[in-house]
Every structure is written in C-alpha cells, then in structure tokens.
C-alpha cells in the first residue's frame, strides 16, 4: 500500500505542542449523562498530562477486536481520514496523519485521550471525540446521547494502535 497519508495543511499538531498546553494539569472531564446501555458508563476521564492513563471503565483492550472496530464503517471508520495498516480498506483518507507507526510514537494513555476526547487537545480539530456525547446538536435520534464508540471499543482500538510500529501489511 503506497503511503498516502500527507496531513492536510495546518491540521497536524506536534505532540510537544500539545504537551505544552496541558502538561502538568490534572483535568476532570465530566461526561455526558450516562445512557442506558454500557456506552457512556464512565462518569469522568482522569487526564494526566496529555493522556488518560486509566483504561476506560476498567476494560481490557483486545488488539484484534480493535482492528475490526477501526475498519468497521459503522463504528470507527478511522481510515476515512487516516492511513492505517488495514489491508481491506482500499482507500485511505489524508485528513489526519499517517498512523501506521503510531504505537511507536504515543503511549497507550496518549492514544486513549486522542481517540476518546481529541478535541480536548484542540477544540478546532475535525477529528471527532469518540468517547463523548455531550454538547452535540441535531444528533439523529438513533445516535442521541451515545458516544460514537463504547468504552470497550475505545480500549480495543487503543490496544491495536499500540501494536502499530510501521511493520504492518
């Protein structure tokens, strides 16, 4: 698969830049009202620096399941914006940075924050907060008050991303 992931101009922020903004601060992000299913079941994220060290809902992530979630158009659909080692996704987007070796660059805690609540780092970012459902407008009824991914799905994706070192298919 040829590398297609050139970040769109102005989209990419360096990790050090993000660190500068949040390093050392301990922030509690109150989550949206918990819904009936298990998707919005955690009450808060504990931010340490630019990461969330604690697994969401104390779930254990499964990398294989995470690959499925990332590839699934109805769930993560991450390759719509990112280059990822997903042999089945014929086309990758180039809206976000290439993630083929992201596990070598970011810790699980950093990955967790970027998947669950990326806009905490950059409110302007086009990457959605996969773990939040608060403050959204005109959400279609079927998706109301639900984050895009469940805690388990986020942990699975984080576990998979952590394995990515650039050697993938």
């Amino acid at each position, binding site marked *: 698969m040829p590398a297609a992931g050139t970040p*769109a101009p102005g989209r990419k922020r360096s990790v050090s830049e993000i660190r500068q903004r949040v390093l050392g601060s301990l922030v509690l992000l109150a989550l949206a009202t918990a819904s009936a299913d298990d998707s919005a079941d955690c009450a808060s994220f504990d931010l340490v620096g630019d990461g969330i060290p604690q697994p969401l809902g104390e779930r254990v992530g499964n990398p294989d399941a995470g690959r499925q979630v990332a590839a699934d158009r109805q769930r993560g659909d991450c390759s719509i914006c990112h280059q990822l080692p997903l042999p089945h996704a014929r086309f990758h987007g*180039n809206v976000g940075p290439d993630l083929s070796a992201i596990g070598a660059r970011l810790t699980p805690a950093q990955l967790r924050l970027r998947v669950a609540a990326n806009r905490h780092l950059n409110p302007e970012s*086009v990457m*959605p907060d996969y773990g939040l459902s608060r403050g959204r*407008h*005109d*959400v*279609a009824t*079927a*998706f109301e008050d639900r984050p895009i991914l469940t805690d388990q799905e986020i942990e699975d994706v984080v576990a998979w991303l952590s394995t990515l070192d650039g050697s993938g298919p």
Partner: protein
Amino acid sequence: MKSWLPILLLLGCCASAGPPEHRSGYHLLGGELRALQDDDFANPGMLWVDRGERLWNAPGGPREQSCRDCHDEPANLRGLTNRLPRFDAEADRLHNLDTLVRDCRQQRQQAEVLPHESEDLLALTTLIAHQSRGLPLEVTVEGPARAAFEQGRASFERRRGQLDLSCADCHQRLEGARLRGETISAGMVNGFPLYRLTWEGLGSRQRMIRWCNEAVRAEPMDPDSRRALALELYLAWRSRGLPLESPAVRR
C-alpha cells in the same frame, strides 16, 4: 520592478487557485466524467430533461392544463434557477426550485403534488434548471432575504450530528483533502439537480444536504423548512458567479 516578480507570481498562483467559494465540483472530476457531463448524448441526467419535456406538455388537473399552456416554451424560464432560492416577501418565505414547481402544480394546475425527489419532480426541475445552463449563480441576500442568509451561514458553520462536524469543517477547512477515496469539494451547488454515480440517479440540492447530514449522523432537515431553505440560500451564495451546470455529473 524586477524584485516584485516573485511576489506577483506567488499572488498569481494563489489567485488562480481562487477563493474556495469559486471552484465547481466539476474540477475534481476525472477526464471521463467530465466528458460524460459535457456530452448531452451521453450525460445520464439528460434522460430526466427528456422526461421533463414530456411532462411539460402533459395536461393535468381539473382543467387539463399543461405547464406549456401557461409558460409556453421551457426556455422562457431561462434565468430563473440561477437566482434561486429567492425570498418571496408576500409569503414571507424562501422559495427554491422544488417549492416553486410543487406549489405551481398544486395551486395553479391543481394536480396532485409531486413528492420530493420523485422522478417526475426531478424531471421537471432538471428541465427548468437546464434552461439556465451557463448562467452565473446570483442570489439576492440583501433586504428581506438577509435574515435567512445569516441563518444559513450559521447553520453551515455549526457542528452537528454524532460526529460533531460542520459543513464548513469539510467544505471549507478540508476542501481538497481526501476522505477515503473521495476528494472533498468546496460544496458548490451550481450543478444541481445532478447525477451522482453513488446514487445511480439524480438528486436535488436538498438531497445532497440530507446525504451530508446523514454522514455525520445528524437529524435530517425537512426540505421545505425555513432552516433547510436558508442553508440552501447560503450554499447558492457561496457558489455565486459559477455557471449553472445542471444536469452535472458527480461521483
């Protein structure tokens, strides 16, 4: 003035790229699709224009009147579509091509209303839009239309849906970037009603708005509602100056 040359070249290069609101989706098409749009005999949208011509002449309603009985040639409506939506001060509302055709049919012809996105409505609207092919889009956003225009702009910029993305996120900030295999255009509306390969059919501007809203998992808008028409007005204003292409062809 030699030292200015590099700067002028730089400016020239930026200028040729043009402001985002002046690039038709046509420019993102490959050569084959451009050829398809440009050739009236191959352009699949022309099937709707043909069908529209038949409907134009077909009598209907209690007095068995056809569109032709009142409007004569469809060509008489050249210059209409490129100015839509327009504000109807008397009714205190915006009209787009669909509401005009549907209302005329219901109130004057007194025939049954054509459902949104039905083949018959698209046939008539495409026939009418086609008459303005080549004319620049120019909508009025001043005076009584101003409030709707501002509402439309706010709607365009407001993030929405479970994915929490705005029209502007994609069609302004990400214009030219690739979303999976699809290059994001500036979101111009000068091609509508147009034929999309992914739809395997024709659609109106409102169908496109609906499609994009679905993509971000937002609640669909009623195509007759004030907010939907206000958004369409803003889209038409963003597309100002572009030649009407209907029936355009898009991926």
